[in-house]
C-alpha cells in the first residue's frame, strides 16, 4: 500500500454522494477543494505578484544601469578621441597657416617640422605637401613618394572639398596600421593677399595608430568589455580583444547613425547578447564602439535571481504544504463531526421511532388482548360445558370446532404477547437473555414472509449455550437488522441460516448467513460506514448496518462480514456473555460510588 494511503483522509475515500439521499450533506471533497484553492490563491497570488514585480523592477534597473554605464564610457572615450584627432589636426592647421607654400615645400624645413612633430607629439610617421594638381611636391618619410600624383584619389578630392580629411586606418607600404590627416590651405597668387586668383595646397601627415590604440586599450571595462573603432563599413580600425582583427569585418551589426552617444543591444556571431555603447566621431569615418557581454555584466544578478527563485519555490512549497495539511485536517475533523452528528440525530430518530412503534404495538396488543381474553374464556366455557356436563362430550365435531376457536385465540395471543414482549424490551436495560429465544422472537415476525417467499430458515443453536447478560432490546435490533438484510438479499427459494457457537468461555459467535445476491468487494469495505447505501433508490438510508455495528461495539463485541457476489453473505457477530459496560458508564459508576 502506498504511504499516501495512510495520510489520505476518510472523506476523500468516500465515493461521490451524488447518487445517495445525502448528496447535500457530505460533499466534503468540494469543500476541501474550494478551501485549498481559495486559501492557496489568497496566499500565493500576492507573494508571486510581489516577487515578479520586484524581479522585473530590479532586472530593469540593473539593465538600465548597465546601459547608462556603457553610454558614459562611450561618451568619455569619444571626447578623448575627439581631442586626440583635434590636437593632431590643429597642429597641421597651425603649420600650414604659419608657413607659406614656398616655405613648407622646402625639404629641409619640412624635415625640421617632422622632427619637431615627432618630438613634441609623437606618432607622426611622415609628412608631405601636395599642390592643387594633386602632385606631392615635397615629402619627408621612409619612402620616395615625391612627385606622386594623388589627383584621382578619393581622399584628395574629399580633402579639397572639405578642407580637412582624416582617413580610415590602412596598412600601406609599411604594413603597419596607420591613418592620414590632410589639411588644406587656400592662398592668393601674387604679392597681394587680396588677389582674386587663388590656389591651394594640402599638408598631409601619416600618424601611427599606436598612440590612438593606447587611448582605447587603457580603458578598464567590466563584463569582458572591448573598446575599439570601426569605420562606417564595419571594418575594425583598432585592435579588438574579442570581435575580430584589425581591418576585418566586425561580427556585430554596424550601429545606425546618431549625432549623440547611443547604447544598443546586439547579438554577435556566437549568439552572445552584447551591450554596445557607440559614438560617431564627427568629420571622420570612425565609429567608437564600447562592447560588453551582457551575460557577464548580469552574472551577479543571475546568481541573486537563482537565490530568489529557490526562495520563492521553497516558500510556495511550504505554503502549499501547510495549506494542504491544515485544510485536510480541519475538513476531516468537520467531516467526522458532521458524520457523528448525523449519526446521533439519526440514532435519536431511530430510537424514538422504535419507542413509538413499541408504544403503538403495546396499545394495539392491549386493545386486542381484552376481547381476545373474552373469546378465549367464552370458548373455554363452551368446551368446559361440553366436557363437564357430558351433554355433548361425544360430539367430536363440536369439540373440534371449539378447540379450533381456542387454538386460534391462542395463536393471536402468542402474537400479542410477542408484540408486548418486543415493545417491553425496547425499554429494558441489562438482563439475562437466552439466545435461542431471542432469535425465535425476531424470526417470529418474519416467519410468514419466509413462508410466502419460500425462504428456508435454518436455526442451529445448541441448547446448552449459556445465556447472555445483555440489553435484550439492543440484541433484538442487531439481529432484526441482520435478518432483514438477509431477507432483502434473497430473491426467493434461498436459505437463511442462523448458527450460534461458543467461541470460548467469554464469547459466543452468532452467524447469519444467506444465499442471496452477495456484496461486491469494493462495497464490502464501506458497508459499516454511516450513510453508505447501495439501496438508495429503494429507500435505503445507509444506517442499518452502521447502527448494528455501533450496537455490537457497544455490547463489547465485534462484527465481521464475508461475501461473494451471487453466492451469499455471512455476518459473524462475536458477543460477550457478560455485558461490558462502556467506559462512560464505568466512569459515572465510579464517580457515584
Amino acid at each position: 500500500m502506498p504511504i499516501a494511503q495512510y495520510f489520505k483522509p476518510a472523506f476523500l475515500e468516500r465515493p461521490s454522494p451524488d447518487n445517495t439521499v445525502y448528496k447535500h450533506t457530505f460533499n466534503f471533497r468540494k469543500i476541501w477543494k474550494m478551501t485549498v484553492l481559495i486559501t492557496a490563491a489568497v496566499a500565493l497570488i500576492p507573494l508571486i505578484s510581489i516577487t515578479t514585480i520586484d524581479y522585473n523592477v530590479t532586472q530593469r534597473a540593473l539593465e538600465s544601469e548597465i546601459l547608462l554605464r556603457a553610454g558614459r564610457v562611450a561618451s568619455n572615450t569619444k571626447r578623448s578621441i575627439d581631442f586626440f584627432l583635434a590636437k593632431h589636426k590643429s597642429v597641421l592647421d597651425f603649420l600650414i597657416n604659419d608657413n607659406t607654400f614656398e616655405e613648407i615645400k622646402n625639404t629641409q624645413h619640412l624635415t625640421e617640422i617632422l622632427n619637431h612633430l615627432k618630438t613634441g607629439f609623437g606618432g607622426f610617421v611622415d609628412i608631405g605637401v601636395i599642390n592643387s594638381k594633386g602632385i606631392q611636391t615635397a615629402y619627408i618619410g621612409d619612402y620616395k613618394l615625391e612627385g606622386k600624383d594623388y589627383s584621382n584619389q578619393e581622399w584628395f578630392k574629399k580633402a579639397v572639398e572639405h578642407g580637412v580629411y582624416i582617413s580610415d586606418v590602412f596598412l600601406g607600404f609599411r604594413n603597419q596600421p596607420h591613418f592620414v590627416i590632410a589639411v588644406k590651405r587656400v592662398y592668393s597668387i601674387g604679392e597681394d593677399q587680396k588677389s582674386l586668383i587663388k590656389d591651394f595646397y594640402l599638408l598631409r601627415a601619416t600618424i601611427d595608430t599606436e598612440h590612438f590604440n593606447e587611448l582605447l586599450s587603457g580603458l578598464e571595462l567590466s563584463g569582458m568589455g572591448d573598446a575599439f573603432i570601426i569605420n562606417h563599413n564595419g571594418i575594425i580600425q583598432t585592435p579588438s580583444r574579442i570581435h575580430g582583427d584589425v581591418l576585418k569585418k566586425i561580427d556585430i551589426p554596424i550601429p545606425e547613425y546618431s549625432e549623440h552617444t547611443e547604447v544598443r543591444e546586439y547579438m554577435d556571431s556566437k549568439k552572445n547578447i552584447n551591450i554596445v555603447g557607440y559614438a560617431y566621431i564627427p568629420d571622420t569615418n570612425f565609429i567608437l564602439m564600447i562592447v560588453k557581454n551582457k551575460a557577464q555584466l548580469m552574472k551577479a544578478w543571475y546568481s541573486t535571481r537563482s537565490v530568489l527563485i529557490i526562495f520563492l519555490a521553497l516558500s510556495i512549497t511550504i505554503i502549499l504544504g501547510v495549506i494542504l495539511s491544515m485544510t485536510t485536517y480541519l475538513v476531516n475533523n468537520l467531516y467526522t463531526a458532521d458524520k457523528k452528528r448525523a449519526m446521533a440525530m439519526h440514532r435519536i430518530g431511530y430510537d424514538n421511532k422504535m419507542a413509538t412503534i413499541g408504544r403503538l404495538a403495546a396499545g394495539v396488543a392491549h386493545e386486542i388482548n381484552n376481547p381476545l381474553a373474552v373469546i378465549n374464556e367464552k370458548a373455554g366455557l363452551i368446551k368446559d360445558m361440553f366436557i363437564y356436563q357430558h351433554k355433548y362430550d361425544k360430539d367430536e365435531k363440536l369439540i373440534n370446532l371449539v378447540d379450533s376457536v381456542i387454538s386460534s385465540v391462542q395463536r393471536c395471543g402468542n402474537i400479542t404477547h410477542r408484540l408486548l414482549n418486543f415493545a417491553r424490551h425496547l425499554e429494558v436495560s441489562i438482563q439475562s437473555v437466552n439466545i435461542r429465544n431471542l432469535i425465535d422472537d425476531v424470526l417470529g415476525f418474519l416467519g410468514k414472509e419466509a413462508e410466502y417467499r419460500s425462504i428456508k430458515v435454518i436455526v442451529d443453536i445448541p441448547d446448552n449455550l449459556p445465556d447472555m447478560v445483555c440489553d435484550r432490546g439492543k440484541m433484538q435490533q442487531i439481529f432484526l437488522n441482520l435478518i432483514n438484510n438477509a431477507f432483502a438479499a434473497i430473491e426467493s427459494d434461498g436459505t437463511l441460516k442462523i448458527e450460534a457457537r461458543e467461541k470460548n468461555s467469554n464469547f459466543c459467535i452468532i452467524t447469519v448467513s444467506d444465499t442471496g445476491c452477495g456484496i461486491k468487494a469494493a462495497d464490502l469495505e464501506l458497508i459499516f460506514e454511516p450513510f453508505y447505501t447501495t439501496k438508495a433508490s429503494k429507500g435505503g438510508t445507509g444506517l442499518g448496518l452502521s447502527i448494528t455495528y455501533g450496537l455490537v461495539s457497544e455490547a463489547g463485541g465485534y462484527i465481521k462480514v464475508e461475501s461473494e457476489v451471487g453466492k451469499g453473505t455471512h455476518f459473524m457477530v462475536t458477543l460477550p456473555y457478560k455485558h461490558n459496560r462502556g467506559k462512560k458508564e464505568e466512569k459515572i459508576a465510579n464517580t457515584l460510588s
Partner: protein
Amino acid sequence: MRILLVDDEADYVSTLAERLSFRGIDAQWALSGRQALKYLETEKYDLAVLDIKMPKIGGIELKKEIQKKYPNMKFIYLTGHGSEDDYQKGVADSVHYLIKPVNIDDLIKMMKKVMEGKD
C-alpha cells in the same frame, strides 16, 4: 381455596369464574375495587386475581388496601397490558403477573404455586 376475581370486564370475569368452578375452584368475581372490598367485609378469600387497569381503584392500589386488612392474602395480577410500567410494578410488589388471554390451566398452576408459597 377461595378466589376473588376482580376485573371491570364483566363478560370475562364471570366466564372465568364459571370455568374455575367447573374445575372445583370456588371463585367469586367483582367488577370494581369497591365491590371487591365490600365482598371482603363479609367473605374470606385466600387469593385475589386482580386486573391492573380498572376505573377508580386500580389493581395495584386495591392490593394495598386489601393487604392492610388481610395481610396473609395472596395476589396475582392478570392484565391485558404488558407495558414495562406494569411489569416493573408487578416485580416491585413481588406479585405474579400474567397477560391475557391466558390458558386456564396455566392460571390454575400459577394459583397453586402462589398458594404453596413457591416463587
